[in-house]
């Protein structure tokens, strides 16, 4: 398992093992699909539903399919909530958290704000996720990938790790100080495994914040 990020002369670096890389790629693919595809009705996962410059989505989804036999990747593939069979609400719940209201008591002002800012926010999150994907280079013989980030890439990682945690945390219904509830779940349960991914993302993000401070 990764030791997380540390600050070196060459940049902010971390090494991820094969399984971690697979999880990251899968999650990033789901996040990109969610951010790009929510406005249109369910479409095949391999096609981006909105035109974006240089979109790598087909390749990433293909890779997700490649891991079809890997149970972990199978779990990851269900996280986006954009399955054809599923109604929109799960996606909306996550998108609502990623793109929240700016006004508590004023629906009109909130709608106006959203009209002006939502696309830009989405685009920014897409760009960050693509930067993270792009920074995952070639694996070594053991399937490990070492990333070395400059400040800009590190910021993209920070923001994307947040978006991933928000997406998973919202889907899981994570609450403050609910460790006991999760500890009591059966280790084999789907939810607990996904929660493990959520904790792992938090560990990686914590290490990145400390490497940047």
């Amino acid at each position: 398992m990764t030791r997380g990020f540390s600050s070196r002369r060459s940049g902010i670096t971390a090494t991820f093992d094969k399984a971690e890389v697979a999880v990251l790629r899968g999650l990033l693919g789901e996040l990109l699909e969610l951010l790009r595809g929510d406005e249109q009705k369910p479409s095949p996962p391999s096609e981006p539903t909105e035109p974006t410059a240089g979109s790598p989505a087909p390749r990433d989804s293909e890779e997700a399919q490649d891991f079809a036999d890997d149970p972990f990747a199978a779990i990851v593939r269900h996280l986006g909530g954009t399955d054809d069979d599923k109604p929109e609400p799960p996606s909306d719940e996550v998108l609502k958290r990623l793109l929240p209201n700016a006004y508590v008591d004023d629906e009109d002002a909130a709608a106006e704000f959203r009209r002006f800012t939502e696309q830009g926010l989405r685009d920014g999150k897409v760009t960050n996720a693509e930067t993270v994907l792009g920074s995952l280079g070639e694996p070594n013989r053991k399937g490990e990938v070492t990333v070395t980030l400059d400040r800009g890439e590190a910021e993209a990682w920070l923001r994307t790790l947040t978006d991933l945690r928000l997406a998973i945390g919202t889907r899981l219904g994570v609450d403050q100080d609910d460790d006991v509830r999760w500890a009591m779940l059966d280790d084999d349960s789907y939810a607990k495994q996904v929660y493990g991914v959520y904790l792992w993302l938090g560990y990686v993000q914590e290490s990145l914040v400390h490497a940047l401070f």
Partner: protein
Amino acid sequence: MDVVSTAPVELERPDAEEVVVPDTPWVTIVWNDPINLMSYVTYVFQTYFHYSRQKAEKLMMDVHHKGKAVVSSGTREEMERDVEAMHSYGLWATLEKSGKGGDGRTGRGGGA
């Protein structure tokens, strides 16, 4: 006055709608959420607002313990920029008039 003039009478006191009410400062509020790391929230306050580590940590603790905290104040446009920035960092923020609910005048007939 017996004579009725058809010309409009000029009042010394200006029409109520022309009175300029000085802009009530707006504030940006960051709300607690169970997902974001405390270290990350502190990082955001330091990086975006250029607050000292001490101030950033204090604000983060206020968010954490009190459920929310005012992190900046200014014009409405400035606060919308701050809120948008907070959202881009994954924090949940909203803006409102400071002292909201006190004067009862929204000036635009707005309000839910």
